């Protein structure tokens, strides 16, 4: 870690430091509040929630809502809980993240180390793709998936997620490789290394931080996606977010808020774990280039 700004820090008075801690803790409270609301209410019986005060601790603690959300709550006509949908999401997320990350890395590599006339325009166009509202691509995507006979299949979902992740993954890797010394690439080339050899032996080994950033970003986005998941899945491929939505969005039935909150936390666990475990690398990865432009 760079000590630059931290050198500045040591010159602060004790008073200022106390103030800084106070602010930091205050914000921690702000960030934790909704999680607290979800957590305490997921541990209450429904009657207690009906009686009001969402902020109070449970009078009667119960883990029944968690068990229900996991294995017995009504998702469709069958009381299966969220359990069976985890695997569907994993089957979709893992290949989609892998494909978009690999393609993004290769694109970044080409766009920085094998530049060609018009590469900036190509990159600019790929980057703009990050910004289109997904609702507008729904209908035409459905048509193309139908023509490819991929409608309602896991490969179809993977394809769509990979495509709409390409903009971001390309951006991340392109910015990262931009800072990577081109001389090394050139030297390897003179030694007769091929296009893929250079990528595999020289760039890839030092790409860990940006791979972490990209994987976190893609994993979170695809895991939490609802729109594509609900439109392009079918009976055997319904992802977890769609199941969660079915759990919490009853139309004319009793709403079991405690089960909803438990389910929401369960569904978010994989992304939460990814964030907590790799948070340190995330900042490091961003530092290593992703924010530079």
């Amino acid at each position: 870690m760079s000590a630059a700004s931290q050198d500045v820090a040591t010159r602060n008075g004790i008073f200022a430091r106390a103030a800084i801690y106070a602010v930091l803790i205050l914000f921690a409270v702000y960030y934790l509040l909704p999680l607290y609301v979800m957590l305490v209410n997921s541990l209450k019986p429904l009657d207690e929630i009906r009686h009001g005060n969402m902020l109070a601790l449970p009078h009667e603690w119960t883990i029944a809502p968690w068990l229900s959300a996991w294995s017995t709550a009504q998702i469709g006509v069958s009381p299966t809980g969220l359990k069976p949908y985890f695997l569907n999401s994993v089957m979709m997320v893992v290949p989609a993240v892998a494909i978009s990350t690999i393609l993004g890395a290769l694109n970044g590599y080409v766009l920085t180390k094998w530049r060609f006339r018009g590469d900036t325009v190509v990159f600019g166009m790929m980057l703009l793709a990050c910004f289109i509202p997904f609702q507008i691509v729904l209908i035409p995507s459905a048509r193309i998936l139908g023509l490819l006979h991929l409608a309602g299949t896991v490969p179809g979902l993977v394809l769509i997620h990979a495509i709409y992740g390409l903009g971001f993954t390309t951006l991340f890797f392109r910015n990262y490789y931009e800072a990577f010394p081109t001389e090394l690439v050139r030297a390897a080339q003179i030694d007769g290394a091929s296009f893929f050899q250079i990528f595999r032996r020289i760039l890839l080994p030092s790409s860990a931080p940006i791979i972490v950033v990209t994987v976190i970003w893609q994993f979170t986005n695809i895991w939490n996606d609802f729109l594509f998941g609900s439109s392009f899945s079918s009976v055997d491929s319904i992802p977890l977010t769609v199941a969660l939505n079915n759990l919490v969005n009853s139309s004319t039935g009793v709403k079991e808020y405690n089960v909803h909150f438990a389910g929401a936390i369960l569904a978010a666990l994989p992304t939460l774990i990814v964030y907590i475990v790799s948070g340190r690398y995330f900042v490091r990865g961003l530092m290593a280039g992703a924010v530079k432009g």
Partner: protein
Amino acid sequence: MLRKLLIGTMLAGGLVAGYSATTYAAGGSVEVLHWWTSGGEAAALDVLKKKLESQGITWKDMPVAGGGGEQAMTTLRARVTAGDPPTAVQALGYDITDWAKQGVVGDLSDVANKEGWDKVIPGALQNFAKYDGKWIAAPVNVHSTNWLWINKKDLDAAGGKAPESWDELIAVLDKMKANGIIPIVGGGNAWNAATMFDSVVLSLGTDFYKASMVDLDPAALSGDKMVEAFTRLSKLRSYVDDNFSGREWNLDSAMVIEGKAGMQIMGDWAKGEFVHAKKKPGEDFVCIRFPGTQGAVTFNSDMFMMFKVGEDKKAAQLQMASDIMSPDFQSSFNVVKGSVPARTDVPDTAFDACGKKGIKDLAEANEKGTLFGSMSQGYASPAAIKNAMYDVITREYNGDIDPKEAAKELAAAVAAAKG
């Protein structure tokens, strides 16, 4: 409990004269897109699934909840565009007609003619379940929106007599207010406020309801009577607590159940909340038609719209339609769901007091010609117009515009949405 009910109603169903079950398929599968994912309604649908499975048909479940079916309709667009529509799709009112216009729906006329659906389904429902003379959807139930749900204890404290006219209603509301409770709750979102508006408009006369909500007559939409309707809506709003905004209808119901609030205007799906909280009609709560609307019913009906499928799936689809229309399913489903059967020939024995009243009112309204599609549920006008009305109603309810402006804007918004 469900199973017991099922057996009971199957027996009841068997008593219906002249009904004979038909078997179309001994295998195959149906894929069903629907938004009934929460406890009671999903359990109700499970009855259908079990029935089909007993006939050797596999049920492929494709639930997409949210927005009162809006999410499911989004998914349906993607599925149809991809050329892979589900076998059956839960749908409401004008959405069915709109899909039929696209030429993508199936034809149930074979089974419908054989089983005589024309004779047992109210004409008002047939307008939606049929297109171009062909049956395209199988109605599961009839809900009605012009109900008032009152906490019995609160009502007793306010005189004990259920209001039968607008003035009596206001008198009860005033008493409840004096008793220190919130007299009435509702209108937390556009849909909820529009559901209240259904009843208010209907209470100003069935002709007026038909002219304004169904026929979309500009004079009725902008006239003095509409101003009066909005004034009444605002009057009701004045008895609602200040925290109403954004509150779901079921939380409103919870307040009525607990006696914090006196009453709620809501469709009969609200009964599920009361029953779930172990409350009994007549003892703990009272269900009456909104004052001034007894004898008329604003309905909505959940239907399963059938899509064009390959020959291999056709038999299972027809079987599903036939099962939905069977009296035993209509009874057992609706007992669980809180609605009343779409068939008029299903015995009411298995239903509670509110259910029995619902069945009776529906039959009466059907005969008298006072059975109207509910505006708030998309049975009076297509989605574009319905939502244009929502915009105006919710703004008026929230005090952004006054009743006079609201009537003017209502006519303008409807005209704009038509174009």
